[in-house]
């Protein structure tokens, strides 16, 4: 926990200041639950055919799998403030961002299963999810999201549209040249860009201390004169408050911003990760900050939801995720000839 826990009275003040009402906060809670259920179900299906021997090529979902369990609040806190025409560019760990940006869970799941009914007809897969109807894109190449989001921001301004672009990336990606280069450009051009660094302390097996010269990304962003904020990425309300401020500013022509969201991934870097580089105890310590129970607690303190309502929202989210997986599982695979189509328009 990186900020003081608000008293009940201060909590009311904070949500009022953020302009969050009961309805919005309950919707955000349901979104967190949808992402958690979705990721849990993907993990469950991913291991079909991969136990007892873990073989990445086996089972209904092949290849690498990077899940975002634990990081849901960053995605929902930011994306619940975006409009459909705002752009999001994500990373190799993209499901939470996609769902939070409104990508249809069924089409998302179908793409992860490589089905013809998927977002990209099965050609993209889990790290290459594109949905132009929701202005969502991602890449398996670390550091690729920054300039592409800046490009969307640049275009929005040129086209006279009051849209905002958001680049999500991990703290490992923030070491890449594209991070510094993009902040510089966004600042010089005063682009409507919000850079969100999801700092989960590790890049693959590499702990942050071994790779970053400072623990803070905001220090680096400020050197480019980009207003920057540190938020508790395990606290939806904290993410939301700051995201609202910077997204509104960007939309109103006030230039770019950076959000440094401190968070944690509960699962391995990818499925099959033996996690030699961190301790069980550390993972357990971060469990105390799980964004879902924390928001439940706050909804109760605010008197905006009781246990019955929370459980109804959780069940609804679970059912929506299950329906998505079912849709994916029952969809047909693409025809082999599809492979040769679509290099050019």
């Amino acid at each position, binding site marked *: 926990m990186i900020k003081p826990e608000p008293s009940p009275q201060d909590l009311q003040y904070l949500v009022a200041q953020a302009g969050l009402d009961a309805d919005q906060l309950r919707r955000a809670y349901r979104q967190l639950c949808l992402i958690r259920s979705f990721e849990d179900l993907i993990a469950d299906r991913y291991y079909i055919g991969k136990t007892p021997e873990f*073989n990445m090529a086996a089972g209904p979902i*092949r290849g690498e799998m990077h899940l975002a369990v634990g990081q849901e609040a960053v995605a929902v806190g930011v994306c619940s403030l975006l409009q459909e025409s705002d752009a999001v560019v994500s990373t190799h760990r993209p499901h939470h961002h996609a769902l939070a940006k409104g990508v249809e869970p069924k089409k998302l799941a179908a793409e992860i299963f490589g089905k013809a009914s998927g977002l990209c007809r*099965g050609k993209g897969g889990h*790290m290459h999810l594109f949905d132009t109807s929701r202005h969502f894109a991602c890449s398996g190449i670390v550091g690729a999201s920054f300039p592409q989001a800046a490009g969307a921001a640049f275009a929005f301004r040129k086209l006279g549209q009051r849209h905002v672009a958001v680049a999500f990336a991990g703290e490992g990606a923030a070491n890449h040249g594209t991070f510094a280069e993009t902040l510089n450009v966004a600042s010089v051009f005063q682009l409507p860009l919000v850079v969100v660094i999801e700092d989960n302390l590790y*890049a693959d097996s590499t702990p942050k201390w071994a790779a970053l010269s400072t623990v803070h990304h905001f220090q680096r962003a400020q050197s480019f004169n980009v207003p920057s904020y540190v938020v508790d990425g395990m606290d939806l309300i904290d993410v939301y408050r700051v995201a609202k401020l910077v997204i509104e500013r960007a939309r109103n022509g006030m230039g770019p911003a950076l959000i440094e969201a401190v968070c944690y991934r509960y699962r391995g870097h990818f499925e099959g990760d033996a996690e030699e580089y961190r301790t069980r105890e550390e993972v357990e310590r971060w469990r105390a900050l799980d964004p879902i129970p924390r928001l439940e607690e706050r909804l109760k303190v605010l008197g905006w939801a009781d246990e019955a309502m929370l459980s109804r929202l959780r069940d609804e989210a679970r059912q929506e995720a299950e329906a998505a997986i079912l849709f994916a599982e029952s969809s047909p695979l693409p025809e082999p000839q*599809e492979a040769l189509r679509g290099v050019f328009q």
Partner: protein
Amino acid sequence: MRKLRGLAFAIAEAIDQEMAHNERLVVLGEDVTYWGAVFGFTMGLFPKYGRERIVDTPITEQTFMGMAVGAASVGLHPVVSLMFVDFCGAGFDQMFNHMAKNHYMSGGQLPMPVTVITAIGGGYGDAAQHSQVLYGLFAHLPGFKIVVPATAYDAKGLTARALADPNPVMIFGHKLLTGLPFLPFEGEEEEVPTERYTVDFGQAAVRRQGRDLTIVAAGLMVPRSLKAAERLAQEGISAEVIDLRTLVPLDETTLVASARKTGRVLIVDEDYMSYGLSGEVAFRIQAGALGSLKAPIQRLAVPDVPIPFSEPLESAVIPSVQRIYEAARSLVGAQALA
């Protein structure tokens, strides 16, 4: 001698044995400590040499490739891990405008002993940005020696040879030949000496003798071609299979001799079809063996599309045993009809 399964341990053992003899060798790259560079090429080195010589870099391909250039020019021999070859784009300028050229551009002043080790290939569902082969891209640039081992024996000997080379050498290890437990394995267990040895560059290996056609391959396409050759043999078609082992330098002598003998050539490549290995090898063969060719040279490669994710799509574009078998058969059959 003992049995080894796959390239990964063989490469790591070569690095280990050479590091013990050569203080100037330093390993650089992402996740080279706990994860052995993900595909095992540096496994076991971290406990032995520590972070002093096995260095996890930040995710900065451009910078660690540039650091390798700088370090090599003043006395180190960096062994650089490019985790997947697909990530070359992020560090390409330092590789193609500097690593490959500084020795030449400086009129021979600057040494450039750099060994880049990278993982290549698809076939396990990792899609367009994590399944490419791309050795053609680097072989195209003057200044890189290009090593593509297909066996553990070669992997160890060619790596040791690279680590003694004063020039930039890139080693392309196919993921489905690494022998790691989390991936399919299409190689075979083999006898590999425990002691140090080298395998020379520029010497292709004839993996199987044959009369009716020559199949030329590298990396994963070698065991696939050998499997296809076995099936062809059952039908009385005798295929010779050549493992290129290094693309630069390329062993034209062995290629031309085989083409002259069989008169028919099929080139099998997991890289993209156009402007790459298959065209280059075909050119070199016809230049030396045109008079002996009984049919146009044929090729099988990824048909100029990105590697798609979904299994039926991926299988449709990466050359399989079945398609190698069919292509070889029609090459021989077409001739019989003529």
